């Protein structure tokens, strides 16, 4: 069986049930290696594999024997030996029941096997993904990673749960049937094989033809989905700029093109059914006509014709199926390959000999140089010491490297050179868990999870009491947000917190940081979506929170940072000024200019 035969590869997600012959199948790079590794996941399930194999053998054996019994009943009918018939019928009944039960077991066992293997594979993959280093996630598309965890895992799961046992059963049936047929009549078997060759030939020609149109359709479908996705999500812009007519025209054009290609592709695809049916009927004719001819010459009995009718069907079914299974398995192995490539990526290095919790919260950056992409340096020789309990504000225009500094302190990235110390210890020597436990962070994007408000607030530690949670919610002003929600703290936030405004979401993330009781607090544009009056209230609460805590604050609003013990003005990865608000104003340097723009508005 060569790679060209991929007739019935089920095309996932697009009309699951319809005959989707010739859908593009991916080819794995190193199929054998990946398959071997995938099979390795079955080793702990050896018990189930053996049971499954046994039930397949049983089912196939019963399926192959039954027509033989039927054939002898027909022969007895012809010979009018009626008394011999009932015992054979009894045997047939037994054989069929064995076949039915074994098939049932096969279904049950392969479902169980799939369930167990895919659970482990998926859990392993997820565990890997959340432990990947941030740079890996930066350099790989999130959509792609998502599709590996969902689509690829799904394909692999399908193959595991059904294709493999079907493959085994198919091969066995093929062999068993062939043996039976040859034992009856060699010439009739060879004639039956002619139709099989015919069907292989037709499949090959048709699938080559189909692949071209399926590919074309796939591209158009992608385009169409792209238009829908983009234009519906950006509905406001489309409406605001009166783009409806143009967009509708654009869509109609692509939709028409898709329909045209789709019709050609599917007519070719759907023609496979009748063609295969025709070939099956050919074999029926061959069996009936040539069988009769052989029977007249006394080479076979009439019963053999009836057995051959069943055998030729039994024989051609796995052949058609095998081509389909081959395609499915290839797609799945390609998916498994992508999954394994994630599994093989190096996990984040979280190690560190210092397991002691951070005590003081003294931060020091010493000659730090850093670049996200080699050759494009973003931080140059950065030196900064933050005493315990002090409040430091980082200011500067977009792209000046403020957020990068935070990323480096969290050990999300490796430095090019220099070092960062916390309480005198190099952060590379502190384990990530300890370091990050000591730091509370509120990020620019307010990330919340699909869970209750309570669990979102208690994110750092579920065992925190409700009393403490409510206190923290009050001091961060989230209690008002929570009060407006239908079920209060038990309200489940919908995907991405869509039932809250941006400002409300940010309040919740601030509340969450409160509850992690950190030694070091990082606020990265934390209050940009909160209006200034609410922000003021938060700030009042934060004075309390920041007591005895080292704080790093990034903000565009000068009002947010005025009270800082030290303001660090950055530009293109360099520190250009440091000092208190008053000192920097007196200096009349960059900070002064920045401040004057804020105060004097357009007047500069």
């Amino acid at each position: 069986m060569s790679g060209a035969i991929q007739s019935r590869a089920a095309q996932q997600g697009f009309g699951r049930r319809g005959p989707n012959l010739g859908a593009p199948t991916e080819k794995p790079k190193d199929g054998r290696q990946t398959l071997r590794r995938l099979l390795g996941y079955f080793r702990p399930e050896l018990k189930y594999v053996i049971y499954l194999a046994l039930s397949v053998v049983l089912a196939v054996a019963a399926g192959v024997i039954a027509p033989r019994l039927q054939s002898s009943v027909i022969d007895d009918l012809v010979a009018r030996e009626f008394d011999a018939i009932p015992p054979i019928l009894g045997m047939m009944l037994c054989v069929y029941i064995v076949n039915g039960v074994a098939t049932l077991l096969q279904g049950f066992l392969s479902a169980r096997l799939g369930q167990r293997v895919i659970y482990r594979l998926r859990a392993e993959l997820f565990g890997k993904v959340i432990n990947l280093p941030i740079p890996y996630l930066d350099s790989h598309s999130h959509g792609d990673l998502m599709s590996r965890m969902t689509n690829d895992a799904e394909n692999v799961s399908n193959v595991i749960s059904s294709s493999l046992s079907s493959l085994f059963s198919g091969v066995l049936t093929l062999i068993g049937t062939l043996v039976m047929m040859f034992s009856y009549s060699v010439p009739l078997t060879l004639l039956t094989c002619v139709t099989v060759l015919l069907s292989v030939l037709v499949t090959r020609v048709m699938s080559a033809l189909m692949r071209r149109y399926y590919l074309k359709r796939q591209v158009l479908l992608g385009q169409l989905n792209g238009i829908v996705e983009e234009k519906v999500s950006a509905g406001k812009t489309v409406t605001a700029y009166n783009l409806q007519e143009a967009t509708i025209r654009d869509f109609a054009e692509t939709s028409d093109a898709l329909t045209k290609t789709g019709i050609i592709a599917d007519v070719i695809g759907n023609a496979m059914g009748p063609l295969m049916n025709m070939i099956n009927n050919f074999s029926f004719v061959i069996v009936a006509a040539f069988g009769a001819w052989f029977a007249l010459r006394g080479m076979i009995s009439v019963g053999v014709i009836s057995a051959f009718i069943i055998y030729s069907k039994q024989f051609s079914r796995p052949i058609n199926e095998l081509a389909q299974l081959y395609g499915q398995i290839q797609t799945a192995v390609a998916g498994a390959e992508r999954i394994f490539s994630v599994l093989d990526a190096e996990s984040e290095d979280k190690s560190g000999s210092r397991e002691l919790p951070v005590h003081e919260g003294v931060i020091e950056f010493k000659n730090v140089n850093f670049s996200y992409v080699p050759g494009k340096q973003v931080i140059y020789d950065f030196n900064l010491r933050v005493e315990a309990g002090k409040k430091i504000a980082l200011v500067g225009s977009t792209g000046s490297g403020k957020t990068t500094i935070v990323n480096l302190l969290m050990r999300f990235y490796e430095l090019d050179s220099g070092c960062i110390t916390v309480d005198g210890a190099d952060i590379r020597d502190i384990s990530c868990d300890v370091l990050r436990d000591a730091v509370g962070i509120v990020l620019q994007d307010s990330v919340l999870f699909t869970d209750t408000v309570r669990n979102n607030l208690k994110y750092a530690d579920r065992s925190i009491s409700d009393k403490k949670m409510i206190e923290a919610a009050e001091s961060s002003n989230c209690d008002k947000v929570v009060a407006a929600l239908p079920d209060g703290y038990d309200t489940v936030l919908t995907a991405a917190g869509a039932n809250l405004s941006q400002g409300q979401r940010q309040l919740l993330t601030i509340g969450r940081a409160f509850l992690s009781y950190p030694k070091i607090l990082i606020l990265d544009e934390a209050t940009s979506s909160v209006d200034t009056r609410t922000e003021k209230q938060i700030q009042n609460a934060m004075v309390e929170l920041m007591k005895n805590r080292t704080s790093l604050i990034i903000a565009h609003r000068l009002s947010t940072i005025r009270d800082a013990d030290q303001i660090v003005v950055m530009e293109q990865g360099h520190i250009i000024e440091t000092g208190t608000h008053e000192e920097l104003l007196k200096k009349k340097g960059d900070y002064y200019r920045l401040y004057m723009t804020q105060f004097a508005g357009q007047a500069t």
Partner: protein
Amino acid sequence: MGNLLKHLKKYWLLALLASGFMVAEVYVDLYQPRMMQRIVDEGILGVSSGGVSNLDLVISTGIRMLLIVIAGGLCGIGSALFTNIAGQNYGNDIRKACFEKVMRFSFEQTDRFSTGSLITRITNDVTQLQQLVMQMIRGLVRCVMFFIGGTAALLSLDLSFGTIVACAFPLILIDIIFVVWRTNPLFTVLQESLDRLNGIIQENVAGIRVVKAFVQEKTEAQRFGEANRHLVDTQFNVQVMLSFLRPVMNIVLNIAVVGVLYVGSVQVRQGGVAPGMVMAAITYISQILNGMMMLAMIFQTLSRGMASAKRLGEVLETESSIVRDDTLPQASEAQKGTVSFRGVRFAYAHNGKTVLHDINLDIAAGETLAIIGATGCGKSTLVNLIPRFYDATGGQVLVDGTDVRAWEPSRLREKVTMCLQKSELFSTTIRDNIAIGKPGASQEEIEAAARAAQADDFIRQQPEGYDTPVAERGMSLSGGQRQRIAIARALLKRSEILIFDDSTSALDLKTEAKLYEALSRDYGDVTKIIIAQRIASVQNADRIVVLDGGTIAACGSHRELMASSPIYRDIYDSQLREEATA
């Protein structure tokens, strides 16, 4: 649902042709066993000619069978052809109709459906519906034909075989109904648990920094583990249920075969039935029961397809609420660039929460009006009423002296340009993204707009300048850069009224100041309505409206408000405090 059927009418002839060809194809399949029976009984056994076999009959019947088989195959291909022409064109019609509807929806209507759901409806549901229609034209006809035709053929052999079908039939029906009844609710659960799992994956990939920062890798793995467990268990249950379908059917079918052999042997013994008839009967039985098996699959397509049809019907039934109202008076075109609110009230339909109470405000042509206020005070809602993104639930909004509902919506939106809070960029070049504001604009015009929006500099620094593609919905650009492209787009349109809905929030102060400077210099005649958070952004406006709890708390210039409005002073203090003397 009526809408969906209306679209189907056009294709009735094609559908009929497709079904006709299918009937012919099935007929050929059903004719085969009959011919074989002739070969066996007349050709080999010579039942009616007293045991004399007839080779010529075998050969001539064989040739006839071959011809019929070819005809059957051609009919099958014909059926596939017409089914696809009818089904896919129908799907195309529905898809286009839905998309057109959605494009014309008001924001209220889009919100009600949610964009995610609308996308699924236009893509996935249309495919499901198309599949359903095609199944009905071909699959259903095929099944029913096999069932009815097969039964008729079987009974024509000998009536006693009918009792066997009559016994097997209810058993198989029970099997199908049982499996469908048990699995259908499971499919919903399956979809839910799959969504849940995908949701967790998505959240974790997108929020990985938060997960890591809070050292929650283990908790998340546990949360994922639960969802994973739930999913695989549900999948297992579905598969086990489904795996009942075939083996049970096979057992019934095979017992029926045994039954036919038994009844057949009795009949042959009594005479009247020949062995070939028994062979044909076995083939018919399996054809009938296979037809029923296909029916089970069709049920599944049907239930999925009906759900999709319902969802599509909802879209098609919804009439856009944003249409021109002819009954309202239209003012002369004398005024240009004025906006008035007369006793405007607004409540969201989905939760009935009133956001705006009795707003009265007149904005003069060429005026710069700023709106400031707390999150959720209704600033955004207020300006959204001007281009009719939403309709006021009470009172009147007037543009150029005419009620906004009296304007042709597209004409109104030519007059009013809104720069949105969230900058939505399309996956095309930066140039094309700006040119959306004025299709066919020259390079000079685009550059001028970009310069005013303070975007020209960074655009030129992009690898391909204005021709740089905007990747993955603007992810390659920073928030501030995206906002400036969106602003350039709005400026290029140069309409009478320009609204900035907090659209400079990601700009640093210097850039914002330069933008406002360019605005007052080059766009002096344009009425500007600016929503902002920062006092610095608003203090040079002609008038500033302080919105509080859905009402206008104060309105006046910066100086006036500093003197009269405690709320404004409060905001001012929170941002600039004692340094006012500097």
